[in-house]
């Protein structure tokens, strides 16, 4: 009997959650149509069980407004395409359960990146620029790689550490959350620091700390970071950005000063 009551209680809870109506005020703007100023447009949808923000946006686009622009590819927090400002904070739409949201919400595109339209931004353009600037690729010891040679063994713990930093999906949440980047557009951002820390760990990379100092040893790099650490707090992959940035700062300070 008690089990039935409990089940009924759970069913009621599910029903009450399903019966919730969510309001989304979405910032609409199309740079290709500058005559229409940025404005908020309100949409209401009924919440479903296990609904993500990504599903809610699709619901809106399919049934209410086919002109709404937003990005998605993987729907599983891997591609990093669906990052947006949810109630002022950068989040991945596909990883945000609507049950974690209040009934009244605002959605806006990620700042800092080139706006394509509505909630869609071109993070790829900025990420490519950052990647070229910081040379975020392996700089091999030899000019010519002998593909017939067996690779050097790597300590599993080290491989794990590298993998941990390699989990970055370049969604842009850390940059959008960064107060320094919001003020200074040439700031490298946590995504860049994460990549530097990753290559610095890799024994296959021939670069020294002097080389890394040339890339991030100034106020647009690690010394410009004011340690507000919103990057760490909003990272959807929970990367250890706080400790990595502090580590890079110590290393670069020692390298730069020769202490």
């Amino acid at each position, binding site marked *: 009997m008690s089990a039935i009551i409990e089940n009924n209680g759970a069913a009621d809870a599910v029903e009450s959650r399903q019966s919730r109506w969510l309001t989304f005020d979405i910032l609409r703007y199309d740079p290709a149509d500058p005559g229409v100023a940025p404005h908020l447009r309100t949409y209401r949808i009924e919440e479903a069980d296990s609904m993500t923000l990504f599903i809610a946006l699709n619901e809106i686009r399919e049934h209410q407004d086919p002109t709404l622009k937003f990005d998605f590819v993987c729907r599983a927090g891997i591609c990093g395409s669906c990052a947006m400002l949810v109630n002022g*904070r950068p989040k991945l739409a596909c990883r945000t359960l609507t049950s974690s949201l209040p009934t009244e919400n605002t959605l806006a595109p990620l700042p800092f990146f080139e706006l394509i339209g509505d909630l869609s931004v071109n993070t790829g353009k900025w990420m490519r620029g950052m990647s070229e600037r910081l040379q975020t690729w392996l700089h091999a010891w030899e000019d010519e790689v002998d593909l017939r040679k067996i690779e050097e063994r790597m300590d599993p713990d080290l491989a794990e550490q590298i993998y941990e930093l390699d989990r970055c999906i370049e969604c842009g949440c850390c940059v959008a959350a960064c107060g320094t980047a919001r003020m200074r557009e040439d700031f490298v951002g946590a995504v860049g620091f994460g990549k530097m820390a990753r290559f610095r760990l890799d024994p296959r990379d021939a670069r020294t700390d002097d080389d890394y100092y040339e890339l991030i040893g100034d106020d647009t790099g690690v010394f410009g970071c004011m340690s507000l650490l919103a990057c760490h707090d909003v990272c959807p992959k929970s990367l250890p950005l706080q400790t990595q940035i502090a580590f890079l700062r110590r290393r670069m300070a020692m390298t730069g000063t020769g202490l």
Partner: protein
Amino acid sequence: MHEIIAAQADLADRTIKNSWPAWLDILQSSTGLFLALFMWGHMAFVASILLGETAMWTVTKFFEGYFIFGKSHPGLVSCVVAFVALVFVAHALLAMRKFPANYRQCRAILCHAKAMRHEDSTLWIWQVCTGFLLFFFVSAHLYQMFVWPQNIGPYASSDRVWSDGLWPFYLTMLLAVELHGGIGLYRLALKWGWPNAPRGVLRTLKWGLTAFFLVLGLATLAAYMKIGFEHGGHYGERYMPDWAAAENTSQGDGQ
């Protein structure tokens, strides 16, 4: 000379490794650390008034070298003030580099902090605002202490606080200094990763220390105001414990 020409052509970084950014970052942090620790020490000395006029007089005279040379040398205090002023100016100059420099940057960071509702970002805004206030308040305070170091003592300080009407000045400076220093030390720990404690622990410690020094500072200010109020009729008179007064008298008789 070629370095200047290269710098003007935006090619300085291609000629030699520029160690300045690293030095400036270390200097900003180390001057901030020094000033924050000095501030706590300073608060401890000033708060000696809570133990009585004689305790505060003893601390004052210690720094004037009275117990070493047998005579007060307020100039010693001026020397310390001059050194602190140098560190303060260096810290202000270095920290200014991080301030928002124009309307666009101001609006960007303010809107960002407000919309994000992120504690550490908001704390930084407080750090900037209190730092800006301190440019003026600390400069005025240091100048006063540098020029008139002899006016530090249980009655002299109390007269300044109450009869000269400077208590609102000290109250504002106290709030700004404690907030700025507390946030600054917390940020130093995050910046350099030492002490390597969880952020929640560091934040609790920071608020605990800020609350402690604020309470201590307010109690100290209240004590000076009370003494100043009671001593108002004898404005200008200096405090001296009985034993020191007797010693001075006997020395005078001997001469």
